């Protein structure tokens, strides 16, 4: 059993938050609020060795002592990381990425899945697959 110490929300709660949003501003307000839920990462996380390749903003990932930690210097990405962690918490790793993509589409945030943004989200999944090496339970609570 491993822990996702930063996560404070489940998928239903996330969907609930977005369900009343009409304008894009409201969706991004919610996303920025979610970002605060990511909580403070271990200060040693933000170092070169933990950096995921991404063009526009930095994303750091570590998996030590069975603890997955994620962080970014961009707030919107931090909000998306909360959603990613929630997906990881509810689904086996092999399904989590497609569930994450489906969630973003449902919530009107599909533009963040575009390859042209090269925002490191794809890189995070690749890094997690590399760590898990096929073990579906690696990142489960």
């Amino acid at each position, binding site marked *: 059993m491993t822990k996702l110490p930063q996560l404070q929300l489940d998928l239903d709660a996330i969907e609930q938050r977005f369900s009343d949003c009409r304008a894009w501003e409201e969706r*991004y*307000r919610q996303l*920025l609020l979610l970002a605060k839920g990511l909580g403070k990462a271990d200060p040693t996380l933000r170092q070169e060795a933990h950096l995921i390749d991404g*063009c*526009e*903003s930095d994303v750091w990932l570590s998996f030590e002592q069975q603890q997955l930690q994620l962080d970014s*210097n*961009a707030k*919107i990405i931090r909000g998306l990381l909360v959603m990613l962690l929630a997906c990881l918490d509810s689904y086996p790793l092999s399904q989590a990425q497609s569930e994450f993509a489906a969630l973003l589409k449902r919530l009107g945030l599909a533009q963040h899945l575009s390859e042209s943004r090269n925002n490191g989200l794809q890189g995070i999944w690749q890094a997690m697959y590399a760590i898990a090496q096929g073990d579906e339970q690696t990142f489960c609570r």
Partner: protein
Amino acid sequence: MSQTAFRSLFPCFSTKDRFPVYLDSAASTQLPQSVIDAQVNYCRAGHANVNRSGHTLARQATDKFNQTRQLVAAHIGAQAEQLIWTSGTTDAINTVASGLTHLLTADDEIWTTELEHHANLVTWQQLAATTGASLRYIPVLENGDLDIAHFEAQLSKRCKLVAIAHVSNTTGTINPVARVARLAQQFDAKVLVDGAQAVAHLKVDVNQLDCDYYVFSGHKMYGPTGIGALYGKPAALDALQPSKFGGEMISKVSLSGSEWNQLPYRLEAGTPNIIGALGMGAAAQFLADIEFNERHRHERQLLSYALQQLSTHPEVELLAKPMLQTSVIAFRLRDIHPQDAATLLDQQGIALRCGHHCAMPLSAKLSDVGSLRISFGLYNEPADVDALMQAIDHCVELLGDD
């Protein structure tokens, strides 16, 4: 011609769907109707390969293609036979780098600058690695200008080549390329000028610049993608060994060896991008049809209005203040990651670039998290700057509260 008249020449701005406030012309410009027509009309009228078959349709295509070479050459004050078609600026730089490999040794120096696009930097890193030559950089000063005094002091007869952008794609700095060329030529070094960001905005005369090579792309001067050009002085083009083989670059082939065709064909392997070239020719014609001073005045007014608006906004930090600048501005918003800003600006219909702009060394010097970049084309208006400023306010309001 009035501002709205410029804009009306570009059909994308009158589409029914809401078109963004387009502030990303340094990445690629929109196409005017005349450039679209030139390509479509050629395709509709029937097409043939050039410089090969002798039938009437092929001769017509070849004639048209050759006139186009003349048009594009004239845009930078050159003659048709001095112009090589390439797939773009990057391809042109690579053609020069491969072509000069045989002339460089481990004792030589290649100079470029800290403000280059990766195409005009990584290519020389590779050439230096292949030949053992040293790669040296003209430093960039705090304000975004180049430290030419440093270059002048360090320059020696070891220098064989200087590769420099005419205009920086990140800061809009207009570099003193004519002066750099004069300095370099005292030591018989060749000079390549990357004109990708200049050809749509400045009056370029390669004779006045006196550079050996000048390279540029169609898609940053209102033409299509996938086409560009390499200009060279006759001796400078002669010095280039071909790096791609086949097609009309060959004059004679036997099983024991082959001979190369004359310039410009020697450096144009394979069937050229005929449709792209016709589009680029139409783009050169489009620019020639508008009086330069009129275009220049419009772009200068736009730039100074944008600089004035951005520099007086309390949350905006300009990242460079070059002495001479054209059509590009790099900035960021205080305490806001550029990617967050770009996402929310995109939601408000503002199309701009965020990140390192394919110039990581310069970008890292200006800001540790990259920057936002706006860049203008003829179709932009002061109202676009107003829309940007309003969107920035909204962005600050959404992101600023914690």
